[in-house]
């Protein structure tokens, strides 16, 4: 029943995203409209993929570091990706794919650095060190980003900031294809990690006694979540709150078992971002809001409600 509701919500969100837009397209003309085919449909599909990936990555990371605050950006990825993108803009890289690739590269560089720092204590990946390293690398990348932005031309500065707030304006079937080329593998790894993540929640020692290969699984989850986030950032900028709020909301509905939680987070994250992007496109038409602002405006009150429920329970 819950699954049916979630699937229906996803379908309704996608339908809304295709039907609504700043320009009026009559319902009958929707299937043949150029605007729907080249703009609205790829954008809705991409929003679904990105939102789902962020929520999935967030759910995985929260379980990995056993910290409810974890989200795909906590581990320095957004900082690294932002720095990559801003460097791309500052260096006037002209190719249409330069910005996404620079962001992807920056995100991966941050991931490698955080991973290396987290291993400093020895061979084991310590979740607490992972968080600290992520925060430190993220802060460092943000500082360098601000330095680059403050030294570049004022117009570029504004544009770099706009990009950092996230948006799906660059969506096309090409972007969808690129995203689909590298998102499924890390997503599949995360979905396969459902049982090890359940056991990891008991603590590393108990998980080891129950037969989980703790270290390899932690690494797999970490790399898969990072790759998924980097892919999302590359096509959409930094979209906050989806990866933080959606996994918590789904835990409230599905409980803590990852077998149902992970796919539910994917569906709900996709639905939420499709809706948020529709609001971003329509609310202040003909202007457009950065979608990250909409997810924050929706996400923070929802989060506050959840907090109230937990503290009351």
């Amino acid at each position, binding site marked *: 029943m819950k699954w049916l509701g979630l699937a229906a919500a996803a379908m309704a969100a996608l339908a809304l995203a295709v039907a609504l837009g700043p320009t009026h397209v009559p319902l009958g003309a929707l299937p043949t409209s150029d605007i729907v085919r080249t703009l609205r449909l790829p954008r809705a599909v991409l929003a679904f993929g990105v939102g789902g990936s962020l929520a999935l990555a967030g759910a995985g990371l929260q379980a990995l570091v056993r910290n409810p605050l974890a989200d795909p950006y906590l581990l320095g990825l957004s900082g690294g990706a932002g720095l990559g993108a801003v460097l791309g803009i500052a260096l006037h890289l002209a*190719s249409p794919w330069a910005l996404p690739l620079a962001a992807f590269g920056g995100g991966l560089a941050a991931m490698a650095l955080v991973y290396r720092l987290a291993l400093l204590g020895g061979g084991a990946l310590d979740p607490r060190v992972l968080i600290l390293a992520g925060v430190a690398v993220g802060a460092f990348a943000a500082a360098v980003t601000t330095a680059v932005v403050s030294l570049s*031309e004022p117009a570029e500065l504004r544009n770099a900031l706009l990009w950092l707030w996230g*948006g799906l304006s660059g969506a096309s079937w090409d972007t969808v294809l690129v995203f689909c080329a590298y998102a499924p593998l890390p997503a599949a790894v995360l979905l396969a990690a459902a049982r090890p993540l359940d056991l990891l929640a008991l603590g590393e020692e108990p998980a080891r006694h129950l037969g989980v290969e703790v270290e390899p699984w932690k690494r797999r989850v970490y790399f898969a979540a990072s790759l998924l986030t980097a892919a999302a950032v590359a096509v959409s900028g930094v979209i906050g709150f989806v990866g933080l709020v959606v996994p918590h909301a789904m835990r409230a509905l599905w409980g803590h078992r990852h077998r149902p939680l992970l796919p539910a987070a994917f569906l709900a994250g996709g639905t939420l971002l499709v809706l948020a992007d529709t609001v971003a496109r329509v609310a202040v038409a003909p*202007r457009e809001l950065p979608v990250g602002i909409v997810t924050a405006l929706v996400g923070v009150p929802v989060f506050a409600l959840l907090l109230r429920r937990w503290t009351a329970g």
Partner: protein
Amino acid sequence: MALARRARPRSPISVPSGVGVLVMRGSAQRTHLAVLVATLALACRAGSRPAPGGGLRVVDDAGRTVALAGPARRIVSLSPAITELVFALGAGERLVGRTTWCDYPPAARAVPSVGDGLNPSVEAVAARRPDLVVLYRSTLDAAAARAFERLGIPAIVLRQDRLADLARAAALLGRLTGRARAGDSLAAALAAVGARPGPPLGVRLAFVTWDNPPVVIGGGSYLDELAALAGATNVFHDLPAASAAVGLETLAARDPDVIAVLGDSGAAELPPFARRPEWQAIRAVRARRFVVLPGSLFGRPSPRAALAAAELRRLLAAVPR
């Protein structure tokens, strides 16, 4: 005082006949009266009034009153538009500092740069020992203007977003440099340019300044004014902001004939977004109807507005329809 005396012989203001009678009485009195009249005339014009100890007071675009002992001799300009204006007033040799973006006229490059202009280094500017600093009006610059004030360096903050701002700035800077007549005539010329839209060209254009997210120029901007002067229509004229992020769908629906982008001088190639698949939803992109506007002429309000409008008209007319 020195400023007023300097301005007097060229002053375009006719002396009322009643005053003329008095003026005949003696040369000393005549000078004083003429100075008084000229100063009063200035006071009536641009919010300036005589300072008690001589010199000049002006009220800038931030509402601050700034006093100068005499015409500015060492000016630091913290925006490219002001640098152009100072040269256009014939006071270019008095510039002792400029921004890294000041590239016109070519002689401006010989002036030492003090940095970016916005949120300037007060120390770097003060090191040029200026007797007048001109800043762009923005939140970032308000603190810097106060810092100059504390250092005893007169600093004025001028709006430079539209043609009318530039005309006002020309008149004000004319007075502050002792070239009131040049300033007034430049201001009048700029106002005249702004009052004369070109004959309709029948071209609807959109200025696209960024591609992801798409950012376009709205009605409250200099480029929108230039479009009107060139006889063209900005399809986003109804947006009150100077620029705004819009959806590609909106851009496709507004369906401009031509897309104008700012570029480096001489670069005639298409912007990178012209090849992106999602931009093909826009007719002008599919038809590759772009004009590339050199940034140094179009990127800021400039005394060369008439030239810029003519150039835009020429470029638009040359686009195959």
